[in-house]
């Protein structure tokens, strides 16, 4: 039985290799003639970053990005190539990164470096012995440039494996400045009470106050995580993320009660709860910044900027501005996400690349392309393309070590990462009927028990 499943994997790997061969051939055509540029090799930049000579080597990097995101990343890789002479081959993983990588690894063809989108995958891969620990140079850069919280996120059972080169800030409320002006609101709300008051005023002024993208379950989990982190505190948050306390815990009840203060009021939600359940995340952004009666506020991470730029005519910084998620408890929450770079192959090349990614140079080049946040605390903040991104990045860094990684990304996929089941579905049901707090808790607990048990 073991053998047959191995066969299966080998077959899949063969297919993957065939694809890869095609990809190699293609990139080989495109990248010809650039090989000689890095001839001098080994370089030392002003920031004291030392990289080895890697002339003639080709490194493979796998990540989920496509399109503009991939192009921006490749700009960073161009610099790496200039300094070391190594060629970089980018492999898009598709949406299911862990499956893609698992197949490649079992087929004996892992990429040199991969970006993992979930903490859980890092732990899982480390346990299977698929990850190579960070070398001394990379560790030095990491210690110099990153706060302990981010270093720890890339660590599993005492060994450092990963570099968080890209982060996301999921504790932001974006608002339509026109709606705020029309309602005469001058200052952004700092606490949950202010936030509800602001929403009420906006609603009185005739704008749908809060746009909720309830047709996508993940936006609702992010709502819950922010409220929970701020109200119950980081310790409880960690325990709940690891399912060490149950979802029937009183702290969860409090968080849901708090959420119900907003979700239970049809007047405050764009389209009412029924409308929110029919609103996907992209629509929740567009209906806040375009249309005849735009909503006033929409909650989500820094990536909302991409939707505003892409789908609406609103200008960031003038029509659309952002404030941190209001504090429900004593401190405003900072929920983050991010992609961690790990080495899947031994050797100088992969380590050099991780060292480079952990450096301020790489962070600055990447930040200058726009669309990303770096948790690198030593980098020059003026590298960021616009004031809004800078503000968001500063907020993330200001949280120091009290930020927390997205809870649903830490949970097994069956609970925190699948459309129509688990936490996504249960919170959607809760949005439909915000009075049923106890029932929601029980459903969440039942689903969590099942997913954590098998996962």
């Amino acid at each position, binding site marked *: 039985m073991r053998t047959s499943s191995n066969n299966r994997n080998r077959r899949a790997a063969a297919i993957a290799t065939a694809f890869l061969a095609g990809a190699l051939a293609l990139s080989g055509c495109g990248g010809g003639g650039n090989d000689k540029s890095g001839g001098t090799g080994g370089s030392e930049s002003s920031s004291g970053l030392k990289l080895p000579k890697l002339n003639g080597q080709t490194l493979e990097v796998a990540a989920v990005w496509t399109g503009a995101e991939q192009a921006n990343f490749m700009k960073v890789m161009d610099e790496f190539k200039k300094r070391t002479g190594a060629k970089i081959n980018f492999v898009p993983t598709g949406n299911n990164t862990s499956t893609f990588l698992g197949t490649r690894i079992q087929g004996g063809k892992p990429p040199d470096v991969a970006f993992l989108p979930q903490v859980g995958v890092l732990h899982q891969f480390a346990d299977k012995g698929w990850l190579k620990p960070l070398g001394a140079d990379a560790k030095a850069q990491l210690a110099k440039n990153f706060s302990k919280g981010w270093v720890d996120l890339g660590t599993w059972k005492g060994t450092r494996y990963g570099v968080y080169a890209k982060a996301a800030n999921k504790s932001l409320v974006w608002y339509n400045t026109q709606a705020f002006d*029309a309602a005469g609101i001058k200052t952004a709300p700092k606490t949950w009470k202010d936030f509800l008051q602001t929403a009420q005023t906006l609603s009185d002024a005739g704008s749908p106050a809060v746009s909720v993208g309830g047709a996508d379950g993940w936006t609702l989990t992010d709502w819950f995580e922010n409220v929970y982190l701020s109200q119950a505190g980081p310790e409880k948050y960690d325990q709940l993320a690891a399912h060490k306390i149950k979802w029937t815990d009183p702290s969860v009840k409090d968080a849901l009660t708090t959420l119900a203060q907003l979700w239970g009021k049809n007047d405050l939600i764009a389209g009412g709860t029924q409308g929110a359940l029919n609103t996907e995340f992209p629509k929740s952004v567009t209906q806040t910044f375009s249309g005849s009666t735009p909503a006033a506020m929409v909650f989500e991470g820094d990536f909302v900027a991409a939707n505003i730029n892409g789908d609406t005519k609103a200008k960031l910084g003038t029509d659309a501005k952002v404030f941190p998620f209001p504090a429900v408890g004593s401190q405003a929450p900072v929920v983050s996400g991010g992609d961690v770079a790990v080495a899947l192959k031994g050797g100088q090349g992969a380590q050099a690349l991780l060292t480079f990614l952990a450096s301020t140079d790489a962070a600055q080049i990447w930040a200058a392309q726009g669309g990303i946040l770096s948790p690198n605390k030593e980098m020059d903040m003026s590298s960021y393309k616009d004031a809004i991104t800078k503000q968001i990045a500063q907020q993330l860094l200001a949280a120091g070590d009290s930020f927390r990684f997205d809870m649903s990304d830490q949970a097994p996929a069956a609970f925190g990462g699948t459309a129509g*089941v688990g936490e996504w579905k249960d919170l959607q049901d809760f949005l439909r009927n915000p009075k049923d707090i106890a029932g929601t808790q029980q459903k969440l607990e039942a689903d969590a028990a099942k997913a954590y048990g098998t996962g």
Partner: protein
Amino acid sequence: MTSVANTTGGAGALPTPAAEPGKSVMGTRLWVAVLFLLPAFVLLGALVVYPIGYSIWRSLYDADGSGFVGLKNYGDIFSDDATLTAVRNTAIWVAVAPAVVTALGLIFAVLTERVRWGTAFKLIVFMPMAISMLAAGIIFRLVYEQDPNLGAANAVAKSVHDTFVSSSVYPGARPNATASDLKPSGGGSFTTTGTVRAGTPALLPLVGIAPDKLPGTPENAKAASGSGITGTVWLDFKLGGGGTKGKVDPGEKALKGVKVEAVKDGKVVASAKSGADGTFTLPAKADGARLRLPASNFSAPYNGIDWLGPTLVTPAIIGAYVWMWAGFAMVLIGAGLAGVDRNLLEAARVDGANEWQVFRRVTVPLLSPVLVVVLITLMINVMKVFDLVYIIAPQPSQDDANVLALQLFLSSFGGGGNEGVGSAIGVILLLLVLPVMFVNIRRLRRERQR
């Protein structure tokens, strides 16, 4: 085969070669026969028999395929709510969809026989078959869109509704909760807690509409005065905020045409409508009454039917399926109809049967073999339905629309990651299809014998 050989032999067009030793009656050596059958056997074995065997075997193992769990996966299926909903929905699908499609196909086929433009009509009804399930799913996702401006189904529902019920002037308006003594009094109306007196004008502040979105060109509100029973209905919010809540501040707009009722002991004693400056005057008998703003002032615009909500989602998707497959049924039944002996119909008519009786007693029984074929084909098809449900059902109600094939996909690849349970569902689906297949094969065999 034999019959073909006989006819050609009988026609005498070709000389039949004499049977050689080592050849079968069919005139083929055994190894040649095996050689010719081999590709089919290999393909069937690799693509049908092996996967079935592997699925059955896999369904006895756990999520990552390393531990034998016996029949536990099957037990899990029948204790899991999501899968039970899927079983229930699949049963609804099998019971409803094939029957509706066949009935519609029968009606279309019989009617198009008599219409002059029958072929054109048939072409149009058959056209959805040319669209892939995925595209049809996307089309119906748009048809069932909640917003009447986007979704065709709700656009129809809304225009029908609005023909009978007129909409209000100020949908969404509501009293300013902090500064007014208007409180909800059931059914969407609002009533003051205090009573109105002559000489003290009543203030009825409303909010919830953007000042620049008021219909027409509203005048500025004026505080009512005078000795009669008067008051003002106005929008207690001006662009940019400011002013005192509950007071008629300069620049705040009047709400014209709001109906105000004076209520004493639950009975309406008088009513008035606010004028262009927002003021209204009630007759003297309203003295001491409470003021009520009836719901007709504020009723929200009709927003259509929640097609893809938990209750209607399965019927809605079945509707999409019927749209796709009615053409298929019509064409097959139409072909059957063409083969029906007209004399029988004529004979029935001569005997004095009316059209309904002819249809019911003659056409349908004659068509029954075709109807059974259509019904069975559709039943097998319906059990496998996946794409329509996956695409049309929005995330929040996907659970309520779940069918077995979708549950199979979700539990093995869609984040559940449990291929054991997925295989078990696959095996159950196979067991459900088998009886239908059996009936189908029996019928085919009987037909051949005839």
